[in-house]
């Protein structure tokens, strides 16, 4: 049973999972990072309070986060087809993963940026820094340890969600686990994929934490 076809399939599964997780997290940040920055600065104690903008972003983020991922996968099928051309496989799974991850990422970015000491922001203001300079030179720089720690959590969560997408033909290790372990009762293949998922998760987690520690000069 462990012939080269199976091994190749599992190897492809690993590549698929890593690809989905990293690309989805990346695009999750492309959307979520600016959204988190805007949430932070438009909040009532932010650099440029804007109630309307905050409300809109806040509501968007809450609505998307409250939709279960499996439902989001199905709801987004037409949109996914539009973007990728098909609704199954690893590339297609990236679309709902990004949509699902972005509002979580925005919230995490918001909480990271709010950890930056108000006094330091005031010092920057007192030196004549503009809001844009404060965002790029102070907020994002001073919050970097927390941002990286959260990015690690995001990557791990996206990895888990990508496996969930296996239930609807999402590709990657999760897909293999569902098809072989669940539908064909091949327990050994399922166990192998689960172990591989755990190993991948650990690698992501340790790398992220290592980088975060390296960048921390506060403690």
């Amino acid at each position, binding site marked *: 049973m462990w012939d080269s076809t199976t091994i190749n399939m599992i190897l492809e599964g690993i590549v698929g999972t890593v690809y989905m997780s990293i690309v989805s997290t990346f695009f999750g940040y492309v959307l979520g990072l600016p959204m988190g920055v805007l949430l932070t600065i438009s909040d009532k104690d932010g650099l440029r309070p804007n109630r309307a903008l905050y409300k809109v972003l806040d509501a968007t983020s809450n609505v998307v986060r409250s939709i279960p991922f499996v439902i989001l996968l199905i709801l987004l099928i037409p949109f996914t087809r539009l973007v990728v051309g098909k609704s199954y496989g690893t590339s297609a799974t990236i679309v709902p993963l990004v949509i699902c991850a972005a509002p979580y990422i925005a919230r995490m970015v918001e909480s990271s940026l709010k950890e930056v000491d108000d006094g*330091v922001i005031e*010092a920057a203001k*007192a030196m004549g820094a503009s809001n844009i300079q404060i965002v790029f030179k102070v907020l994002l720089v*001073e919050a970097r340890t927390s941002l990286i720690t959260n990015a690690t959590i995001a990557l791990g969560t996206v990895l888990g969600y990508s496996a969930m997408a296996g239930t609807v033909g999402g590709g990657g290790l999760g897909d293999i686990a569902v098809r072989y372990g669940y539908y064909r009762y091949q327990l050994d293949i399922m166990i192998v994929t689960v172990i591989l998922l755990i190993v991948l998760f650990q690698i992501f987690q340790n790398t992220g934490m290592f980088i975060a520690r390296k960048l921390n*000069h*506060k403690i």
Partner: protein
Amino acid sequence: MSELLKVTHLHKEFGPNVVLKDINLSVKKGEVVVIIGPSGCGKSTFLRCLNGLEEIQSGVITVDGLPVEAGKRDITKLRQKIGMVFQSYELFPHKTVLENIILAPTKVQKRTREDAVKEALELLDKVDLVDKKDYYPRQLSGGQKQRVAIVRALLMHPEVILFDEVTAALDPEMVHEVLETMLALAKAGSTMLIVTHEMEFAKAIADRIIFLDKGDIVEETEDVKGFFAEPETERAKKFLKTFAYE
């Protein structure tokens, strides 16, 4: 000497609380003005109004003839003329001493890195901290951090520097090194507005004393020694008494 900073009819309130009422003040170039008064009298708030960190409800503040208006776009230009040093230093924790100091000159004032570094090192040398240039703030003592914060303000070449209880968070032996640095600045002709609880220091550095109580200038005098020996108002007398032990 020319007038650098002018405050007319400044009125500031936080909700229902009036913090500063009808403050008028004029500071000349090179003058050292020390503001003293009981806690909660509005001293720090007053300083923070001067560079637009606090919005004011009415009145006019001008620096170099230009109005300070919180929330306006031009405020960033004005703030570059007004240095500020804070009680809790407010150094950027993820930046080294040198990076802390040159950040605003290079990013806000767009000076070249070489130019900013060169001057930063000269100024650090004056406060005996050149060897600490690559340290992070957490590796420094409170007194060292505050001297770095002062250098950081100086490198912007401000017209006036505001000191907001800069020694209040320091251990006694570190207070001295910071105050020495400020005395040297005053001798070099810097225009300074200082809020402090160090009365001996106030006596030594001030050209003018302002005694603030309940948001009001109660006493203002250029006879600094006279003020500390025998203030004119009862409130100032009572305040100064709290620093004496018999």
